[in-house]
């Protein structure tokens, strides 16, 4: 077992990703190799330092919060308008369908009446 064989595992071992199982040979090497131990220790320092960054906050330019709120407002309005237009579309379609059906019914009635008249005249 060489240090290079363990390199891939060192950062995982230093973090909380220790699901990687060490072979007996790897563990034996780690127990006796100061360089690998130092490497893991350095990874631990790095990961600890990265964790600390979580408490750091970057401040955006003034006014940006309002920009976000306005864009949300606009998105909300657009969504509402879309719903409204969607509802109107359905109403228009329904109206057209009803008008078409009524027209068709009227045509059928007219045709049947004219047939009846013709039959009455013929008899």
């Amino acid at each position, binding site marked *: 077992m060489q240090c290079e064989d363990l*390199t*891939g595992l060192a*950062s*995982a071992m*230093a*973090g909380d*990703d220790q699901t990687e199982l060490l072979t007996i040979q790897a563990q034996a090497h780690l127990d006796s190799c100061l*360089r690998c131990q*130092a*490497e893991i220790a*350095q*990874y631990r*320092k*790095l*990961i600890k*330092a*990265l*964790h*600390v*960054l*979580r*408490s*750091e*906050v*970057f*401040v*955006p*330019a003034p006014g*940006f*919060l309002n*920009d*976000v*709120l306005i*864009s*949300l*407002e606009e*998105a*909300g309005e657009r*969504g509402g308008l879309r719903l409204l237009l969607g509802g109107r579309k359905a109403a228009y379609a329904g109206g057209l369908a009803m008008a078409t059906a009524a027209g068709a019914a009227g045509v059928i009635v007219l045709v049947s009446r004219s047939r009846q008249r013709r039959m009455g005249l013929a008899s």
Partner: protein
Amino acid sequence: MPEALADLVAAARGGDKSAFDELVRETFSGTYTLAYRLVGDEEDARDVVQEAYLRAYRGLKNFRGDAQFTTWLYRITANCASTHLSRRGRHRHEEMPDDDFVPDTHLVGDPAAQSEVTALRAELNVALQALPPKLRSVVVLRDVYDLSHEAIAVELGISESAAKVRLHRARRQLRERLFPLPGEEGASHAV
């Protein structure tokens, strides 16, 4: 989840727009900070934040509440940042201006320790920005924001094993630069 935030989430899910606005105010700085860390540019970060809140607003009904709201929001932000970066196809390596930082008030008692930590943070931020965006995203989400490998893989659109490989590469580059072992100093970049 803090109770106040949970109440706001519940109200916003019920259609209360002002509750969602309040959620934005509460989480705004954190979201912007994550976006900035991921894309490394103020203007891009603003675009990512706007997109993230719009997606959150539209998808709030899908938030099941089994994770923290901030974690859910961070996942959306990570996804938006990933989309943004791939759309722009840019690989910037700019340093972040120091005047954007808010000092950590936990260290006010010990000026020496404070300056040491501040220096390390500055070096770390520069080193993070020097990483390729694909590596930076993974290490930021895992080691700064504690997202699981699975969540990172989902939001970045990569496999879990790819996420682990990227994490290892990112950590290695950072360690060699900031915490080099004897013999590595020459190979590492100057900070």
